[in-house]
């Protein structure tokens, strides 16, 4: 960014709201639908003020019927609209799994290419707010298992601001996972920030000694860990995956090929996870580039607990990332 570029101080929540507002202004087919998105202003206040600005036709409060309103989003998308469906949390999205997995992801294929589903579903994911085991899980990796879906995990202000429009322009269903711990994140963003690509991972910190790969809520922790590693003489690269499906294999493999070490940081559980998938791809396609086994820092395999000290212990934290990285570099560096 040039020194003259104008910036604004903004939170992740506000950046997302700007994105929704802009979409509503730009395209009359766009509308927002979900539980408490209107009168209440959004469970996490993302849509606050939009009902007053756009009215109840386009900011639609729904009954507590995840399957019906997510499926209605699919039908409305087929019928020529561009719905943004908000689900309060990823745990509630399980009540709409039938519609997402059996319909949204399959209809283009089952219909032989006749009916595409230009639907965007936004939902909150992740832990760190003492909301216990029914509001804190990170299931985006599950959704990344499903062909037919695209899975976005904006971790920065720019991505919160810019991914939505690109998702809405996509002809197929796109799920956006907003880590709840990020909503209050505040920083400087270009005043003219707009749409961003959704098919490339981003190098958030270039480095030479090890690749730390992460996304969403753990990007901040991973960058902190990289800063601490730098003080210890380890030059870590931080790759923000941004999109979990399709994975940007080229950026992942290129980074590993340069640093020869990969540590994956994932707030999801380790077993059968997106971190496992990334690890496998590195083994399959860059095995001989590796100077150390691929390693992972993931959440403990427990339902996320309420008590703060237990929740902290369950989640990937900076010291664990630093320790894992140092062990990899120390052994072979």
């Amino acid at each position, binding site marked *: 960014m040039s020194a003259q570029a104008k910036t604004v101080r903004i939170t992740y929540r506000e950046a997302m709201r700007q994105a929704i507002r802009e979409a509503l202004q730009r395209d009359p087919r766009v*509308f927002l639908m979900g539980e408490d998105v209107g009168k209440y202003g959004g469970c996490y206040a993302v849509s606050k003020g939009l009902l007053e600005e756009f009215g109840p*036709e386009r900011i639609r409060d*729904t*009954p507590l*019927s995840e*399957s*019906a*309103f*997510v*499926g*209605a*989003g*699919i*039908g*409305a*998308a*087929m*019928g*020529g*609209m561009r*719905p943004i469906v908000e689900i309060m949390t990823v745990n509630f999205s399980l009540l709409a799994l*039938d*519609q997402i997995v*059996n*319909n949204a992801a399959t*209809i*283009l*294929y*089952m*219909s*032989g*290419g*006749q*009916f*595409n589903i230009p639907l965007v579903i936004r939902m909150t994911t992740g832990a760190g707010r003492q909301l216990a085991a029914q509001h804190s899980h990170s299931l985006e990796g599950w959704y990344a298992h499903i*062909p*037919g879906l*695209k899975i976005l995990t904006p971790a920065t202000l720019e991505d919160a601001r810019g991914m939505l429009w*690109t998702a809405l*322009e*996509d*002809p*197929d269903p796109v799920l956006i996972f907003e880590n709840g711990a990020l909503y209050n994140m505040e920083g400087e963003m270009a005043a003219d920030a707009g749409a961003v690509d959704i098919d490339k991972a981003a190098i958030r910190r270039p480095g030479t000694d090890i690749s730390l790969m992460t996304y969403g809520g753990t990007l901040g922790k991973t960058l902190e860990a990289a800063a601490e590693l730098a003080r210890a003489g380890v030059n870590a690269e931080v790759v923000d995956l941004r999109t979990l499906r399709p994975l940007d294999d080229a950026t992942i493999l290129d980074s590993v090929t340069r640093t020869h070490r990969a540590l994956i940081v994932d707030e999801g559980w380790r077993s059968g996870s997106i971190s496992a998938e990334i690890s496998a791809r590195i083994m399959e396609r860059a095995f001989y580039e590796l100077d150390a086994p691929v390693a992972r820092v993931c959440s403990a395999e427990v339902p996320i607990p309420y008590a703060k000290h237990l929740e902290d212990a369950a989640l990937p934290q900076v010291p664990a990332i630093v320790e894992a990285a140092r062990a990899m570099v120390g052994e072979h560096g």
Partner: protein
Amino acid sequence: MMAATADFPRHPSREHALFLMREMLRIRRFEEKCAELYSAAKIRGFLHLYIGEEAVAVGAIHALEPDDAIVATYREHGHALARGIPAASIMAELYGKQEGCSRGRGGSMHIFDAATHFHGGNAIVGGGLPIAVGLALAEKMRAEPRVTACFFGEGAVAEGEFHECMNLAALWKLPVVFFCENNLYAMGTALKRSESETDLCLKATSYEMPAWPVDGMDVLACEEAARRAVLAVRSGEGPCFVEFRTYRFRAHSMYDPQLYRTKEEIEEWKKRDPIVLFEAFLRGQSLFNDDDSKRLEDEVAAELKKAVEFAEAGTWEPVEELAKFVYSERKPG
């Protein structure tokens, strides 16, 4: 609840009578041929035949306009034929050929046709209802005078999605007409063994939606009930619910030994075969004779012969195209 047939003039023109008869015969003979082709291993997978229920699809679908949308179930060959999807295209789909209406990607349970707004056979019981609600939402938001017809069996009323969708459609006064095909068995489970309240219309009226039952073996009654419902829905009064009381003469699918019902019960219902009933009625009115019967049968047989020839001559989609249409080929922007 209204009695759907009370004030209906049961005097169809000869032309209309022959049309309805031909449409029912087309379905009956198509399904009989499917059973034969299944035994010959030309058709595989699950195959659910509509024999016995022809009056419902023929009556209901001819109450719709060409621009109206249809969402159907996995027992949808009859609806597809009545809607005007060419028999050849449906048969090729059942063969798995790329000339099939879904390119062989869907098979018997997933007939799609954009040209006739046929939004799919859906093989998840209740799974099509949210989509129909969404199509109707799009119609309403776009202020189009179209309605969406949603077919489902009585088994679907046990699903949560049914209740979510009744509520949402009525709450938002959406132009969707719910056509419930009550054939008394959800696969092998009788309605009275699965529902505490077996009056299906009562369930719909509890959502503030007009609902009435109709004799699903009487094609004129089916047509009239559907016309009345479609008219009300198109006028903007919100959704309607019609319960077609019908019966499936064949097994649930080709793997069903029918342990759950007696031969006597089936024989009793066969006395009310919709084609036999209608023919007797028309002969009584001197609207139908032996020549008509022969001519219709010949025409239907000729169409079916061509359909089978088309399917036989069809080609297999190259395996190289396996991943085509997982995502749209059109790029964003």
